[in-house]
């Protein structure tokens, strides 16, 4: 039992790691390319690397964080133009070959000794050279924080059975939520009632006020010395307001949905998912520095950006522009006959998806170094696996897929390390074994369930 719990603990650690969030952001970008528009971009890691270089190098030249991030975006914008102009008029394979080649060129150039003054060569740029401005934005205070603060150790002195009970509750909640969602899906899905504009503006106003109050109160609670900075306050305000906004809209939608039987199912499923998350952190509490290089601050921001990206993609693909993307994916000629500029639409999709990629790259390096080889082809392939696992052309598919992908690999590695005797598989071989499983998993996934976990098979005739 102890082994199982420690394996699950390691799995959870990977699931909430900032790197997982970073890849999730890149996969969200890839979803715009591949899932919604049908562009076969096999160079997403190149976008990540460019974003990371753009930000990190700017900061080492004392450019403020905000502009450094903008520079990262501009670099990826230019990269998209370079990739898109020659290839987007051609068949899909050409984009694939050119993107993978261009990503490799970026990587080779980053490793080059000639650029060592900027990129640090194959050593890379060390984290301490660019992390400072980001960490100083933190309003979480110093010291360490355990999440949840109320956890299994507080019940019956942390006896083993409490943890097991938590695990059982967790599994029960997940199974329940999945069953509910499945029955919902088979009956056509719940329709979200449109909110009236008065309610909407009232909610937004309430969120702004609450966000402002929290901005003042919470840093005081965390007994702050760093949050005096005005930028730190602004960041805090944005984060708090967004969270309050999400809670208010979620609550309002749940209240409206409760009136129908299908809606009740959906609300129940949502409640079970929230309960499952709480159960996870109750059973496997996690302790990190509040701020630090690898603490809660970077985790919070990373996952906050993931949530924000999901919201942006949701709004984008629901718009008329999103329908254009799908139209291009399904039938370019039909779009042309409707007088749409297919080339321009593809280019816009490439640029926007690439920006998510570079944003992912910036988050990816927040806890480590900017090293060219850490963002190579394998990372792009992992991103594809994660995307197809979660479900292409869905909103939450990329996030779910990435979390499951990274935690499943750790699960396989740890489990085969613990239960397969060394004579059959040594410790270093379990690492490779986990990647072999990933590769085979990708193949099986594409063959037998191309729509992934959340996807809709009808939406996924992704042929170029």
């Amino acid at each position, binding site marked *: 039992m102890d082994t199982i719990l420690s394996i699950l603990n390691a799995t959870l650690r990977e699931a909430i790691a900032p790197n997982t969030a970073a890849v999730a952001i890149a996969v969200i970008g890839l979803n715009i390319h591949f899932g919604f528009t049908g562009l*076969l971009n*096999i160079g997403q890691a190149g976008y990540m690397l460019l974003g990371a270089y753009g930000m990190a190098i700017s900061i080492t030249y004392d450019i403020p964080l905000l502009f450094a991030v903008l520079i990262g975006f501009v670099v990826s914008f230019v990269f998209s133009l*370079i990739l898109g*102009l*020659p*290839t987007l*008029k*051609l*068949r*899909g*394979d*050409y984009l*694939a*070959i*050119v993107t*993978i*080649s*261009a990503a*490799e*060129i970026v990587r*080779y*150039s980053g*490793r*080059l*000794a*000639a650029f060592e003054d900027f990129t640090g060569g194959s050593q890379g740029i060390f984290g301490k050279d660019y992390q400072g401005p980001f960490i100083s934005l933190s309003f979480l205070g110093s010291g360490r924080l355990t999440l949840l603060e109320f956890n299994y150790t507080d019940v019956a002195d942390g006896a083993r059975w409490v943890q097991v009970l938590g695990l059982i509750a967790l599994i029960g909640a997940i199974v329940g939520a999945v069953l509910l969602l499945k029955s919902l899906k088979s009956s056509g899905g719940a329709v979200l009632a449109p909110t009236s504009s008065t309610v909407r503006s009232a909610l937004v106003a309430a969120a702004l006020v609450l966000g402002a109050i929290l901005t003042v109160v919470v840093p005081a609670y965390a007994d702050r010395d760093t949050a005096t900075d005005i930028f730190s306050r602004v960041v805090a305000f944005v984060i708090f307001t967004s969270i309050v906004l999400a809670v208010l809209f979620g609550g309002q939608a749940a209240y409206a949905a409760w009136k129908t039987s299908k809606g009740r199912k959906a609300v129940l499923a949502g409640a079970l998912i929230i309960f499952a998350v709480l159960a996870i952190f109750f059973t496997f509490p996690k302790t990190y520095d509040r701020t630090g290089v690898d603490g809660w601050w970077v985790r919070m921001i990373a996952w906050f950006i993931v949530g924000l990206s999901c919201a942006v993609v949701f709004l984008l693909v629901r718009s008329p522009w999103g329908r254009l993307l799908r139209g291009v994916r399904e039938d370019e000629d039909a779009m042309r006959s409707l007088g749409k500029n297919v080339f321009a639409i593809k280019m816009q999709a490439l640029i926007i998806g690439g920006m998510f990629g570079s944003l992912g790259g910036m988050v990816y390096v927040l806890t480590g170094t900017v090293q060219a080889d850490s963002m190579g*082809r*394998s990372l792009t*392939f992992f991103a*594809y*696996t994660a995307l*197809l696992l979660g479900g292409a052309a869905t909103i939450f598919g990329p996030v779910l897929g990435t979390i499951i992908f990274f935690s499943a690999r750790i699960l396989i590695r740890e489990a085969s390390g613990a239960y397969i005797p060394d004579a059959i598989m040594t410790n270093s*071989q379990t690492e*490779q*074994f986990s*990647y*072999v499983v*990933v*590769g*085979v*998993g*990708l*193949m099986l*996934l*594409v*063959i037998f369930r*191309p729509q992934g976990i959340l996807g809709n098979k009808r939406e996924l*005739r*992704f*042929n*170029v």
Partner: protein
Amino acid sequence: MLLAPLALLMGAPPANAVVLCLAQADQTGCVTGTVGNRANPVEGVDVTLLDADGVEVDSLTTEADGKFSFQVTEAGDYFVSVGELPDGLEVRPPAERFQGPDGSILVTVALGGSVSPDLNVRSVDFDAGGDSFGDQIIQSIAQGLRLGLLLALASVGLSLIYGTTGLSNFAHAEQVTLGGMVAYGLCNVAGINLWVGIVLTTLICGFSGFLQDFVMWKPLRKRGLGLTQMMIVTIGLSLAAQYAFQFFVGASQQKVVVRNFDVVELGPIRLTGMSFVAMGVALVAIAIVGYVLLYTRVGQATRAVSDNPALAAASGIDVDKIIRMVWVVAAGLAGLGGVFYALVVSNGIRWDTGMQILLLLFAAVTLGGLGTAFGAFVGAIIIGLVVELAGPLGAPGDLKYAVALVILIVLLMVRPQGLLGRAARVG
């Protein structure tokens, strides 16, 4: 002990003797080093220490151990200048940030410490150092042809697969690695004769192509799986194969055979004898494929399937049989290429050997025109030459691979169908 450095400071050391320099905190610093290296020191070289203004501080002549040592009393920048070296040797230019005036080498001395200048001696004909530029180019062209022919072995198959099935096979590079790995297992581990091993490897790799088509690709075609999905399947296969190689063989480089091959000199060209064999074999293999494609019924049928599978099937060609044959030939050729690549180019095989040339293969195939076997051959030769010539023409390090990819991107802008492709195939 404390007095020793002081004594050295007082009595000026004789210019010709090598004196051990002991740095004393806040008083003295040392510049020490060796001309040559410990195994091959260089005797009788004048070494001069200049201060930041270029004024001589001290000088000495190295003895048999090649060592030199200077003592200074002020911290700061100094330059080490090395006099005439014996014939056949030269000072390798130091890294840019250490370059001082007139070929001297910058050292920054702190008191109480000892520093060594970035001084390296190499023989004049080392690497590209001494050959005339023309000789370098000729040598690079020979290497480029070698690389190109080996790339052609793999890319002809890649192109045939693309032509007949429309699939961009990202796992093709792993077929190349597989060739090297199988040869390593047969020749190095099991100790089979190299030539027998090469033949066996080709057969085994060809069989792996047959097996792949039988187990995976044919059923997937029957399922009607889309080409994009199949392409992602090949990505998964490539990932699984790479880590499977690591799982079974380990992450380090393995040699196919332990012995080294003799170098043959043909004028300015210096290649191992094995290289010439590899080039010959590659040329013969490709010629056979070309002959079969052009002048036999099977070849005609393959080209027919390439042009239009439905029409080919309608006119009585067994498309599945043709595709299976293409897989066998492609995998066999890639395996053969892998063995020779490991023998003569990369000096061993590693799990990612194939992955490193995957993009060159794609560049070659696209350059020649996707799906055209002869285009792939021409493309591979061009890519091979470009990669090898990029070095002497000024592209440092790994950038030589990038040059090939840049050419690919530029070509797609100008002539997307490739050199030998037909415009109708594109878009």
